[in-house]
């Protein structure tokens, strides 16, 4: 069974004929070839596939493509603007918030919504806020730092130091 749907992806409306059972993540990755959104599990547990649907973060492996009909999708490829990369992206790079980069796109999309709802989160709020996204590489310390950096930058405040801190 196929159905025609129209979704706006990173600002571009697209009309596609899709199978009813097609997952949104496969539509994004295969039908429109935006491979920045990843797949890390089959139980909605890892968050590697997180995108924004009408501004809200969602695990795109748990949404059917037909459910996205008429909606606006933002993927990692839509984070940067003509002015340059998004403060969240900058936060990740400056603070070593990624190793293999596989969880990173989903993590950043989740954080985008988090910071919109709560522009100045505490460390605990950040940790709970990303608890639906798994990272196997970083141990999360530097993801927390990346969020704090992005939060400061988005609020126009002085940026925290990006030098690693060591006990001595």
């Amino acid at each position, binding site marked *: 069974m196929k159905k025609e749907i129209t979704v706006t992806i990173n600002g571009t409306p697209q009309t596609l004929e899709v199978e009813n059972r097609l997952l949104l993540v496969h539509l994004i990755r295969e039908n429109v070839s935006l491979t920045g959104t990843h797949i890390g599990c089959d139980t909605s547990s890892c968050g590697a596939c997180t995108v924004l649907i009408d501004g809200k973060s969602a695990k795109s492996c748990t949404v059917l493509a037909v459910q996205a009909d008429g909606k606006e999708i933002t993927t990692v490829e839509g984070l940067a603007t003509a002015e340059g990369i998004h403060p969240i*992206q900058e936060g990740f790079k400056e603070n070593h918030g990624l190793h293999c980069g596989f969880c990173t796109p989903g993590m950043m999309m989740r954080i985008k919504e988090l910071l919109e709802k709560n522009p100045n989160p505490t460390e605990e709020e950040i940790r709970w806020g990303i608890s639906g996204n798994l990272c196997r590489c970083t*141990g999360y310390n530097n993801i927390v730092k990346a969020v704090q950096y992005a939060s400061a930058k988005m609020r126009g405040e002085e940026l925290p130091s990006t030098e690693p801190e060591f006990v001595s």
Partner: protein
Amino acid sequence: MIKCKTSREIGGMGHSIKRKEDDRFIQGKGNYVDDVKLPGMLYMDIVRSPYAYAKIKNIDASKALEIEGVVAVVTGKDLEQYNLHWMPTLMSDTQMVLPTDTVMYQAQEVAAVIATSRYLARDGKEAVRVEYEPMSPLMDPYKALDDDAPLLRPDKEGKTDNHIWHWEAGDKEKTDSVFEAADVVVKEQMHIPRIHVASIETCGCVASYDKVENHLTMYMTTQAPHAIRTVIALVAGHVGLTEEKIRVISPDIGGGFGGKVPVYPGYVIAIAVSFLTGAPIKWIEDRSENLQADSFARDYHITAEMAGTKEGKILATRFKVLADHGYTDASANPSKFPTGLFSIGTGSYDYNASFMEADAVYTNKPPGGVAYRCSFRVTEAVHAIERITDTFAREVGIDPADLRMQNFIKKEDFPWQSPTGWEYDSGDYHAGLELAMKTVDYHALRKEQAEKRAQGKFMGIGISTFTEIVGAGPSKDFDILGIKMFDSAEIRVHPTGKAIARFGTKSQGQGHETTYAQIVAEELGIPAEHIQIEEGDTDTAPYGLGTYASRSTPTAGAAAAMAARKLRKKAKKIAAYLMEVSEDDLEWEPGKFFVKGAPEKSKTIQEIVFAAYTNHPQGMEAGFEATHYYDPPNLTFPSGAYICIVDIDEETCDIKIRRFVAIDDCGNIINPMIVQGQVHGGLTQGLAPAMYEELIYDESGNILNGTLMDYLVPTAVESPSWETGHTVTPSPHHPIGAKGVGESPTVGAPPAIANAIVDAVAHLGISHLEIPITPFKLFKELKKVGYFK
């Protein structure tokens, strides 16, 4: 503070420069294997066994083949025609690619379905009917050698039981006699649980065979592309696929941690099908398949004993291991080391009698085990020595920190010969533990603990002071399938002074594109940002054994430095020629040669390189490139001192890590930011088996937690805010004094956490808790000792 020899602009060793690879990852432009799309590509899905041990009576693919878009169903019988139904493991055992008659573990590959889309392949998989005759599986390794145990591997000629191998290290007689005479002997039985690397990217490949050119391109999640190319050539040479006709490309990898070293059946089937059909075949496993079927790690049952004096002097250790390998020994160890480097388990302590032995057995579990972020069974060994050291300290009534300080090998005693035959290169164990203790204010914590205890509260302090062994390895002992474990670097500097360097290793998130550039920058003075790093393509990179076991910095990193030094020698000759002075009159500072006593007379490396192409001395080879294959003279021995503080709810047994301080010594540091990131990640992967992760099977062989829903990878909430620091004791034999760090934290964290939890309840008569230590497990133990009624 880390002193740097180069300026920040050059960005050599010691600078926390930002990672070069990040730009593509943060913009969704990484290229992982599932992103590879080729024209005409078909998709493969795999039918798996619901039983742990069963005869296959029949495979009926007819319903699957009726589905439009399903192209083929491949079974073991099909592969048998090409003698491809079995493959060798790295440990000279054999593993089924697809079974012809018996399945040996739940989730084992049974047949492969090829279709024109991912969804249709899955439809086909659901439609394949397999008839099984289930048998009673052997799940308990302790029962593997019982007389009534089923003989699991009758395919192996002459095999009459389920025993795989026996291994020993150290001096049995001497150790036994020390034990006999000792005042104090302590003993613990421990299990290092079966766990999984669970990298967020699963495994997969696109096998693309070109019938016209007789050429295979294999895009594959592998940590060791060159070794894989050789293995494919050895396995498929008989059908005409020789090594020059094979190109293995390891694209960006979403975490490896050892799980992407083995050759899984899916890869081989994909190659075989592509070879037969001429179409590119994509196989990407699901997470559940990944957890249930890909190589496990650990699963060592250890009896650990320590002998010592009443005054707390350690005199001897004795470890006995039972290793559960599943149905085949598919470990990823160097050939001569069936237990990997387990014999490092004598630890950081100065004594000279130790005996270790291990026996491996077959069971109806998935094969393995891989060196999960661990230099081959070091994690198991370190857990044993660090746990038993605490038990010993408690027995003799000495604080575990004092006892460790009293027994450490002294800084001046390096190089130090261990009782199991290793030569530790360098270390300063006292300095590491002192720094960790000072950071947490150890003595104040002990006071607080005593007060809390008086109020009936549980608080624990755990220490682990471990020695690692990494950088495999010296070619006289270390090989994989006969190939020596050197590694390589090739540097080409272009006329304008910018460079490309290629390596036989393969980053899976470790940041090689940045750190290797820093090593070359350090040696040649060319800014790191102008040095491009490439790995993972066997057509272009020099041969190497790959990235695992913290070996990249010790081997390929050394190769980079050595290749750069060859170039610096050449640069000196050119500089002397250009300035018309003798080489002896020249001195180097990062980025240029200058004339001694006349520093205004100098030539920059860029000028020198340009001359190598435009104005090189007659008789000298033009160009500016060098290659080096580095064969390490010894392994490197990083160390660490970790302290963990836990608070435990005395009613719910909820365990909270209050603080965790990790002091590592990995020798000279290339990029402190990246080293710290590696430590954070490794600590979290050490926390995981200490408190959360274990692959659990029931008696019928069913895996009880084979998905990410119930296999508990720590989130940001479970992970504490790690505190890290370092001491720096360079490796004396390594060209840049570095030791490797990626794995120390995974190795060192579990005993620190376990020791802390045991320490919180030891006064109630608990001397050991098996990891993962969950609140429920702790509750049960507390009940056993009468704390809970």
